[in-house]
Structures are given as C-alpha cells and as structure tokens.
C-alpha cells in the first residue's frame, strides 16, 4: 500500500510508440492493487500487452477504458486508504471507511442534467468526482476547445498539475489527430466491446454499463446475452469474409504504413542466390541424434541462417546500416529481426547481438519469441531495434521472392524452400540440398557487388556450419 498517491502514467513501451489505447482496466475502481498486479490491458499499434502496477494502492482510473492517449498521460491513481487523489483530475472517493465507491456524475449518456451540470463539452465520459474538477487553465480550455482536444487525456504540467495551454499544444504536436473520442454519446464502450456487441447483435444502448462513468465492460455484455458460445473476437478477425472491410488500424495499419514508406523512400532491388545446404542438413541430423536427450535445443534451418546472416554482417558492415539525412550510419550492434506470421499480419521479434550468441541460444530465443508473438504475449520492446531482418517463406514452398526492407534498415534476407539440387561432378549428376536466398537491399547504401559478396559469405558459412555452432 502506498503512503501517498502514485500516478499511473501510460507507459511508453518501445521506441516508436506514439499512442496507446486502454483496452480494458483489469481491476475495478476502488479495488486494492498490489505492486505487480496486472492493472490494464494496453493496445498499441503493435501488440496488446498487460501493464502491471508499479506500486500498491487503491485504484482509481482517470480515463475510461477505450481512451487513446500518448505515453506519459495520466491515466489513473493508486491511493492510500481513505486518501483523495491529490490532483482533482482523479476520481475522489466519497468520505468514510466505505470509501471504495467512486462518486460519479455525467454517466452513461452525454445528455445535460437538468441543473446544467452536463458532462464535458465533447461528451467525454471521463470520471468526475463530486468535489473534484479537471484542473486546467482557462487558456488551456480555450485552446483545447478550438482544437477539439479532450482535456482528460492531457497531462498537466502547470502549477499544481494544472493543464496549461502548452500541455494542449504539446499534446496536439505529439498526436496531431487529436484525441480519438472514446465513444459516441450513448454507447460508451471500448472498440473491443463494440465489436463484440456487433457480432452478437447487442444494442449497446440497451446495456447497463458498470464501468467508470457508465462505461460498458465486456462483462456487461455477458449479462445481456446468456453467452452463446463466446466466439473470441480474434477468431473472426483472422478469417476475413468476402465483403468485409478490414480497417487499417493497429498492426494492419502499421504494416501498411511501414511497407509503403519503405518502398517510397528506398531504392530497393533483390538478388537471388542459391546456397548449398548439404552440410547444414547433415549437421542437423547429427545434432538431432546427439542432442535428443540433452537440454540443448536443436537449431532449425532458419536458426542456422540467422546465425550465418549475423556472422556475415560482421564482415560486411555496409549491410548493417541505416540511412539518415546526414549519411549512411554503419551500426555497431547486430540485432536480427525475424519475421513471424501471426493472425492478421506479421511481427518481427528481435534477437539482440545475434552474431555473438551460440547457435543453441539463438534457437532457444527464436523459438520463445516466435511463440510469444503467435500467442500475442510479445512486448513492444521485443519488437524494437532490428538492424537487419531475416524472413522465410520456405515453409510455404516459395523459392525466390522480393522481401521489403524494414524501415530504418538497408537490407532484408529472404529464405526460400529447401530443395534438391544438382551438381555436376565431371559428367555425373550429384544430388545436393540447396535453397535460394533473396536479398533485398537499398541501393542508396549498398551496390550490387557488395550485396552479392555478402550472399557469398553466407553461402560459405553454410558450407562449413560448425563455425555457426559457437
């Protein structure tokens, strides 16, 4: 339990996070929270992730679920027993020992009350306490009204935590689209709940919201329907039907934006290069036998390729670079991203300092990261900072393709299908094992010859794979 009120701020997870939506508060208003308890589910443009409480206390939300705010925005309070939120933006508790029921006004609808004490002008369902008030300067309110910004999402930095016009201006700069209104009047619910309601044919205006400010939670939907075999939302989203419109939001939006940006700004071209895999294949067979009972994971073909790509980058630093305005920056660290197909898109977890890791370690990490990505457990931090990417379509039977470089990198290595090849030894055909590498590179930074040399180095490493083990 805290001694004093602790602010709950929207965390910034990963370097590129610009906004996050509070998908769901995982604890009830007024509930006692211990440090480390999961407090909310945060939806970013990459992943959904559970955020833990950094301190203990009595939980009070400042913004309702469904609100989209920038990192650092004040979203809640953890209070001591009987304590009021120090900033009037928090939801003050009613006095007395039973101080767990927040006093809320301006609940489910934005209809003004008879005495004129309507909810905020833009219909936000932000909780307001009976004695509490959003602390903001008149000028901040003027600027916010002009820009249609919901002040409940803005963090105040003025005296006493008051929101001043600079806060609104900085909020607008960080989030030019303005605040996404949590919900239209009369249907205060998170997008997830709205989607579920639509799928189940529930009219949200009929639902009694039990969340802060009359916010409709997922659980409230259960009260309406006798739970007709709850189809997970994710399931339907994975299997698009003809006639659907898939919104360019979240992961889909990020992929769309980045891929388009990548092809817009880079001069991309692709080399196809066949490499011999006989040695790797036979080494794997041996490892499968020898390591069968040990605790060392047997590396997959992909793991061999990851390690080979990383080691080769050490010899060809031009491929491990980033192009900025002032020039091509050759990067010191080699952080390998590898693409993992997930429902609705793809994610690129990152193995840091891959060239220094022994192959079993790469195998262990790639397995764990891929699993986490598929199960939606991966954190944005685990998706950040790749300096080079490996992507494989071999499992789908693709030999050659033209992967698109991740923005900020100068190359990406595509791995094709493992197949039989032929080598002519004198006049005699010999069966070999080969696969085709597809290296897309940014011609602004890398020319054709060095790109080919990089591929040749990988080929050599794959022919003598023992070097890759350590």
């Amino acid at each position: 339990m805290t001694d004093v009120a602790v602010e709950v701020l929207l965390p910034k997870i990963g370097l590129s996070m610009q906004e996050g939506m509070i998908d769901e508060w995982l604890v009830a208003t007024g509930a006692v929270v211990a440090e480390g308890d999961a407090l909310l589910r945060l939806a970013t443009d990459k992943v959904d992730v559970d955020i833990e409480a950094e301190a203990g206390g009595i939980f009070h939300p400042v913004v309702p679920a469904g609100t989209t705010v920038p990192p650092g925005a004040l979203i809640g309070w953890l209070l001591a027993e009987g304590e009021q939120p120090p900033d009037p933006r928090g939801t003050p508790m009613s006095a007395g020992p039973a101080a767990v029921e927040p006093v809320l006004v301006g609940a489910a609808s934005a209809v003004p009350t008879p005495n004129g004490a309507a909810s905020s002008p833009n219909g936000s369902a932000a909780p307001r306490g009976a004695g509490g008030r959003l602390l903001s300067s008149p000028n901040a309110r003027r600027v916010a009204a002009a820009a249609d910004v919901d002040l409940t999402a803005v963090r105040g930095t003025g005296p006493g935590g008051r929101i001043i016009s600079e806060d609104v201006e900085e909020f607008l700069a960080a989030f030019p689209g303005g605040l996404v209104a949590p919900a239209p009047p009369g249907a205060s619910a998170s997008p997830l709940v709205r989607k579920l309601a639509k799928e189940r044919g529930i009219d949200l205006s009929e639902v009694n919201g039990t969340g802060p400010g009359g916010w409709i939670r997922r659980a409230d939907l259960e009260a309406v329907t006798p739970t007709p075999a709850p189809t997970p939302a994710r399931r339907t989203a994975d299997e698009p039907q003809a006639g659907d419109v898939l919104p360019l939001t979240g992961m889909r939006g990020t992929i769309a934006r980045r891929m388009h940006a990548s092809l817009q700004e880079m001069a991309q071209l692709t080399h196809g290069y066949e490499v011999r895999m006989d040695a790797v294949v036979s080494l794997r067979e041996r490892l499968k036998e020898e390591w069968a009972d040990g605790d060392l994971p047997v590396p997959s073909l992909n793991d061999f390729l990851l390690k080979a790509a990383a080691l080769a980058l050490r010899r060809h630093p031009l491929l491990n670079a980033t192009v900025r305005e002032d020039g091509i920056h050759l990067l010191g660290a080699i952080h390998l991203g590898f693409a993992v197909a997930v429902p609705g898109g793809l994610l690129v977890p990152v193995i840091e300092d891959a060239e220094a890791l022994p192959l079993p370690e790469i195998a262990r990490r790639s397995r764990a990261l891929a699993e986490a990505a598929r199960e939606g457990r991966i954190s944005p931090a685990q998706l950040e900072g790749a300096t080079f990417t490996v992507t494989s379509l071999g499992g789908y039977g693709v030999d050659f393709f033209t992967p698109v470089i991740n923005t900020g990198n100068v190359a990406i290595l595509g791995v094709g299908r493992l197949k039989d090849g032929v080598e002519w030894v004198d006049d005699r055909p010999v069966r070999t094992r080969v696969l085709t590498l597809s290296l897309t590179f940014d011609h602004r930074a890398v020319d054709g010859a060095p790109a080919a040399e990089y591929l040749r180095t990988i080929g050599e490493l794959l022919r003598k794979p023992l070097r890759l083990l350590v």
Partner: protein
Amino acid sequence: MTTITEARAAAPDGTARKLSYVKAFNEGLAQAMREDENVFVAGEDVAGYGGVFRMFDNLLDEFGPRRMIDTPISEAALVGLGVGAAARGLRPVVDLMFMDFIGVCLDQIVNQAAKMKYMFGGALSVPLTITTASGAGLGAAAQHSQSLEAWLAHVPGLKVVMPSDAYTAKGLTVSAIRDDNPVVVMLNKVLLGSAGEVPEEIYGIPLGQAHTARQGSDVTVIALGRMVGEALAAADELAVQGVEIEVIDPRTVQPLDTETMFASVRRTNRALVVHEAVTFGGLGAEIAAQIQDAAFDHLDAPVLRIGAPFSPVPFSPVLEKAYVPDRARIAEGCRRLLERS
C-alpha cells in the same frame, strides 16, 4: 501638444540629453509656468529652500514670490488654498512633500477637489496639481515611506500619475498641470537622483495611456512607479534564461489604461502586477480583477500580485529591503507563473 513619440524622436541618436528625475520634474514645472502665467506653486519650503527634495530649485529666482509661495505647516490649508484658487481659474501646483501627510488634508482632496466639478454641474473645474514624494527605500520609516495611490485612485474625480523615470517625471507633470481636473503626481523618492533621456522642449504625456516599456511573449508584468525599473532589470535577468517578459508601465493609475494590459495578456497568457504598496487592496487587486474579467479565457495561470506585506514600512534597513519588492522577487514570480513539472 507634443506626443511622446514626437518628443523622443526629436532627440537625435547619441546627442540625447540626460537629466535626473528631480531635475526633469523641475524643468517641466518651470516650462509649464512659462507657458501659462496662471500656474503657481504653493507648499512647505518650496520657495526659499527649493523644496526638501530640491524639486523646486531656482524657481523662486525666475518666477518670484507671487508664483512661488511658502506656506505654513498645514496641509489642509495648503490644499484648500489650491482648490479655491483652481476653482477661481488659476492652475495651482501644491506640494505635499511626503505622501504620508495626505492624511491631514484628505477632506480637501477627496471631498472638495474631487467633487466640486460634479456637484456644481460642471459649472467650474478644479485644475489643481498636487505633487508629493512617495515610496520606501530611504530609511524614512513608517510615516514617510508609504505608497498610497490606491486610496486616491479609488476616488472618482481624481487623477493619479506615477512617473517611473526622468522622462515621465517631466511629461506627466506637464500634462498634470495642463489638465483641467485635480491630478496627484506621485514622485518616487528613490528615483529622484536617477538620470534618463529627457527632451529639452516642453512635452506632455497623455494621461490614461499605458506604455509598453519592453516587449515580450511569456509573461506580462504590469509595474507601477519605481517597480518599472525593477521589472526591466528582472526582464534582463530572465532574458538570459530565455524568458521574455513584457513590461507595461501604466504611467497613470487613474484613469487606468487596461486595454493595453488586456491585449498583452491575451498574447502572453500570464500576468504579474507589481507595486510598492501593500498588496492587500492595492492597485494589483484591481488590475488582476479586470484582467480575469476581460481575458479569463486567455489565462494559463492565476494573475500574480507582488507588493509589500501587510505591515507598516519598517525603519530597519534590513527589514525595509525585504519589505519592498525588487527585481529578484519579480523574476521569481515570473518563473512561478511559467513553472512546469
């Protein structure tokens, strides 16, 4: 009448003449006396001695005892003399020496000078100028150090000017004498010796027109009298830290040019009012109230007032220094208004 801008432009660069605050006052008074023979001076020790602050030096020599009159030590009689003479068509300048002495002649000022034109239906006017020295900082103790502009500005029918430098000491004095209504000229004792550029020719400064002494974008500082110089010094200090404050010198506190203040505050979104007088019930309260009324939606912070604590002016030099607002407190106030966590 010469406007400020014309007067200032008349002084070519580099050849501008510098004059002390008290000499500038003296020159303006002398020129006004030359301009209009109805102007005369009455007060304690103003003629033979030239005034305790040397405000009236040499005037007896030029204008003689009919226009430079030493009076008995009776402020009520002296102001009453002025009210009567003004009502009969002369333009008296009466001197109260220390502003603190106003207590003994308030009836003449508040109930006679200020009311006469109104009560006679405009049949007569009272073109009376009252000069007096105000302010703390000279170790003159509680009965000789006050700034009582709020008392006077509260009374309809009076005008009150507070020269902040040598230039305004002359221009506002000339305008006060030329004005057809009672005007109190509050000279500041600490500023008496301070020098500034002063045009040689006679000029007036429009009453009720504020002057933006420094332009800035971050905080509007409205400073009265001697506090203008302190605010400008604070502005220099803050500018080093990247904070640009706008300094407004109202020059006249009654009538008060609030439009200039509002326009400034709408740009800076923050206001600070500073005066030497006790904060409670001071002009700062009036100005703050008017700003929030007119520019509420443009404020990012409550209007901050800086003034003296609610206490008589201390005699102890150490306490007196702590009592009077200064550049450090103004700068600190600005930082407070701009503070962000």
